[in-house]
């Protein structure tokens, strides 16, 4: 997509960042005011923490502590390999001091996986920390991009917005493309979630400093902080921080975008600010743009400046079933039960607990799930707050869904093709460009679960494409075999001719024939005799074993 690339460069070369109207979107009631009433609170240390390790496979884990060992706060517990394609690993640190008890699968409040391997840490309540080594300002200014990147990696920072992509990997993925623009995403457009807003209101300076560090890490030329216009306090705080901030060597811009869901979606945000549409199935880095969440920026600040690894995050606790909804700085591995308890959960009122916002969230099967690095919001929905959808009615093709779809898809047409299962039409209608934002479901007068249908269809398309890939592989193997057989035949013909001409050692001749003929090397009669004997042997053995089985039964 060199056209887009050029366009991006041209646009970014000039002072061309301004707010554009993006297509679609909805304006759901936000329900953020309740959790924003109080300041961010620290939680007490729970008796037991299940620290999620971001993987389900023990093989990808290299433990640095033993079960039963005493650990201190900030101590590195394990390195989690991220697979070959990332080529790096993610460290996990102890949120408090205590004794390691177990390593087991446990439910986790993560958007992608419901279960992860967790390390159980029995807290001793003393909260003994290993000494952190904060850097002096001068030292920080001397740090190179690569060094910042290493520190971010060592702190084990994941994308705090919810997608959970390792930040260091994301930064590195931009290196090959040359990132022009870094956008710090403070939009937080989804209802209920207010963690980022709370964070900015109280620690705007850290966010800005972290943003600048991220910019240096990916050597972007421009740095933009994007925030929705509904967050007045946060905007004021950011303005103030930007004015007072002295570390910045480049101008960091604050751009206020209109509040709309999903304005905070990566692609939509980029389009809104730059007018560049990130090409389908490509990452924004291909267009020279990198987007990081403001929580990530804050964590990066803590990691680089304070030397503090990522052991906690800001999580919104809200919902009508909570007496005092608020934002907490939660230690990773705290259970949701514990957190709800801190907010005064009215158990009788709780109808469902949801991770994330009300539009893209996931219902949690159990409240024993633990907080991980991507847990941005936990909703304890009261009775009638997030009700189950009424019975689905027929699609009347009103087109409301097409009007709100940020990807400009036609959900009503997609639905018809989902019903017939026509994967080719589905791909042509752009199902794979669906970002599953749920705007169509929100607006649909017939209460059709469109996103669920699309997710299912995506899965089956994915499976089909996997089959295709496998077929392609088999096809290649088959063709290679044909080629091999042909070549073998030629070779054996040639070698026979050779053998007839020259007087070779008989053993070598036999060997060459064996190599050429596969089954050759001894006479046919002998072979068949041996096979028959072997068959008889096996039959005898099998008869014996089956009678053994009979006896054992």
């Amino acid at each position, binding site marked *: *997509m060199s056209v887009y690339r050029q366009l991006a460069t041209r646009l970014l070369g000039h002072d061309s960042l301004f707010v554009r109207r993006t297509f679609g979107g*909805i304006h759901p009631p936000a329900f953020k005011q309740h959790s924003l009433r109080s300041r961010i609170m620290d939680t007490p240390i729970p008796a037991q923490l299940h620290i999620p390790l971001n993987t389900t496979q023990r093989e990808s884990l290299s433990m640095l502590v033993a079960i039963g060992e005493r650990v201190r706060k900030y101590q590195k517990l394990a390195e989690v390999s991220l697979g070959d394609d990332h080529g790096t690993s993610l460290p996990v640190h102890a949120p408090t001091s205590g004794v390691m008890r177990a390593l087991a699968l446990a439910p986790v409040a993560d958007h992608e996986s419901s279960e992860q391997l967790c390390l159980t840490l029995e807290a001793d309540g003393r909260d003994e920390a290993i000494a952190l080594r904060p850097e002096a300002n001068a030292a920080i200014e001397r740090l190179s991009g690569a060094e910042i990147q290493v520190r971010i990696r060592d702190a084990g920072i994941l994308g705090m917005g919810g997608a959970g992509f390792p930040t260091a990997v994301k930064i590195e993925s931009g290196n090959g493309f040359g990132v022009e623009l870094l956008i710090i995403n403070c939009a937080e457009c989804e*209802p209920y979630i207010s963690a980022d807003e709370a964070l900015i209101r109280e620690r705007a300076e850290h966010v800005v400093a972290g943003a600048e560090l991220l910019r240096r890490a990916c050597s972007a030329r421009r740095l933009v902080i994007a925030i929705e216009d509904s967050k007045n306090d946060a905007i004021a705080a950011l303005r103030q921080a930007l004015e007072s901030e002295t570390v910045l060597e480049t101008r960091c811009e604050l751009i206020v975008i209109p509040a709309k869901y999903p304005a905070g979606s990566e692609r939509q945000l980029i389009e809104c600010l730059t007018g560049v549409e990130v090409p389908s199935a490509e990452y924004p880095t291909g267009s020279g743009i990198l987007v990081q969440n403001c929580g990530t920026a804050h964590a990066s600040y803590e990691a680089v400046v304070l030397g503090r690894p990522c052991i906690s995050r800001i999580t919104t606790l809200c919902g009508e079933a909570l007496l005092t909804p608020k934002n907490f700085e939660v230690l990773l591995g705290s259970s949701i039960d514990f957190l709800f308890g801190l907010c005064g959960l009215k158990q009788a009122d709780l109808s469902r607990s949801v991770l994330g916002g009300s539009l893209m969230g996931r219902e949690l099967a159990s409240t024993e799930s633990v907080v991980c690095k991507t847990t941005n919001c936990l909703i304890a929905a009261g009775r009638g707050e997030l009700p189950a959808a009424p019975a*689905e009615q027929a699609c009347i*093709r009103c087109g409301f869904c097409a009007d709100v779809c940020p990807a400009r898809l036609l959900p009503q047409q997609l639905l018809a093709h989902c019903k017939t299962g026509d994967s080719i039409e589905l791909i042509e209608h752009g199902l*794979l460009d669906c970002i599953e934002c749920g705007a169509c479901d929100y607006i649909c*007068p017939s209460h059709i679960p469109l996103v669920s249908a699309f997710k299912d269809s995506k899965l089956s398309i994915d499976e089909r494409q996997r089959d295709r890939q496998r077929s392609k592989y088999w096809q290649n193997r088959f063709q290679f075999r044909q080629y091999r057989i042909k070549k073998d035949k030629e070779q054996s013909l040639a070698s026979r001719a050779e053998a007839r001409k020259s007087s070779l050692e008989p053993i070598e001749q036999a060997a060459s024939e064996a190599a050429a003929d596969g089954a050759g090397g001894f006479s046919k009669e002998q072979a068949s005799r041996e096979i028959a004997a072997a068959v008889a042997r096996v039959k005898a053995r099998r008869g014996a074993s089956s009678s053994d089985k009979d006896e054992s039964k």
Partner: protein
Amino acid sequence: MIRSATGAPFQHSGNNISSLMLSVAFALLPGIFVSTWFFGFGILINIAVALVFALVAEALVLLLRRKDIAPQLSDGSALLSALLFAIAVPPGSPWWLLAIGIVFAIVVAKHLYGGLGQNPFNPAMCGYAMLLLAYPLEMTGWHVPSEAILGPLAVDGLGVPSAEPAREILNPLSLGAFKQSLLLAFPFAASNPSELGEFIDGLALATPLIEFKMAGQSALLAARESGNSLFARDSETAWELVNIAYLLGGLYLLFKRIISWHIPVAIIATVLGLSALFYSPGGAAVYGTPYLHLFGSATMIGAFFIATDPVSAATTRSGKIYYGIIIGVAIYSIRVWGSYLDSIAFAVLFGNFCAPLLDHYCRPRIFGHPTRTTTNREPAEP
């Protein structure tokens, strides 16, 4: 498809089909009110009859198909179809005409395709067009309650009253007029046949477009200028007001974002443009003024209420514009050059026929794709 326990989203806007349908029905009220004011109770009787038959037909079909009756009856779609159909059919039509039309609409045009949301053609207009083809005589003139003053009325073959006024139009809101309308709708209720015969022969007042088509516009103007008592209640003014009432209803729908602007604007602009293009005061009278085309007949209700039926209309934005243009052109050409008097029904049906094609070819460009056509991401072929 059943919403799985964990399926997002959990929040909903609160839109639902019945409230949409009821809003559309609500927006029809001013038009219905003005029509009643000028043309009497015929339209209300039409609505009542059509509604009863529509609901009964729908319930029967659902019963036959062993589906839940209550949720589908209460979604308001049958109600809306019946309303639109009843407004289209001339007041004073006998009950069986309405029954045949609406049963055809509900059963054939809607439920044979599987019910709400799946019919490719607008049910109300299917029923209406079928009646227009099958009962042309009953479907042409609007009966207006009247009273004989000078003996029997001479009516020419086309239902246009001859020059001499033989009857006087009753106040449409009077009790006598109501009785007449009722008897016209339910002929079997008449106490003696002669009473009925008098009404059947009674005065038929055509819409201005029909009149200008039949007699030429100059005749219409002449009749009006001469102060002919036939036009005591000036039918053209009445039609203007009716259309303005429907326009108001349509604007309400636009304001409530129940319909999008694309279809009505495209239709109105096309009709306006074409009629302005062809009209010349000295030229052939058959073309009619743009004003007459917009406010003289059923253009407004067609543009705002009938063509925007979401089920049978095109659904993409550009598709909606083309859909409106096709309907507009069809409306104008059928009115001016065609042989049918009413053009909305046929034009909308023709638009419905084109809608799937438009939906297929007028897709918007998907986010992140350089061109409108999505490339299939299959592995490249050698």
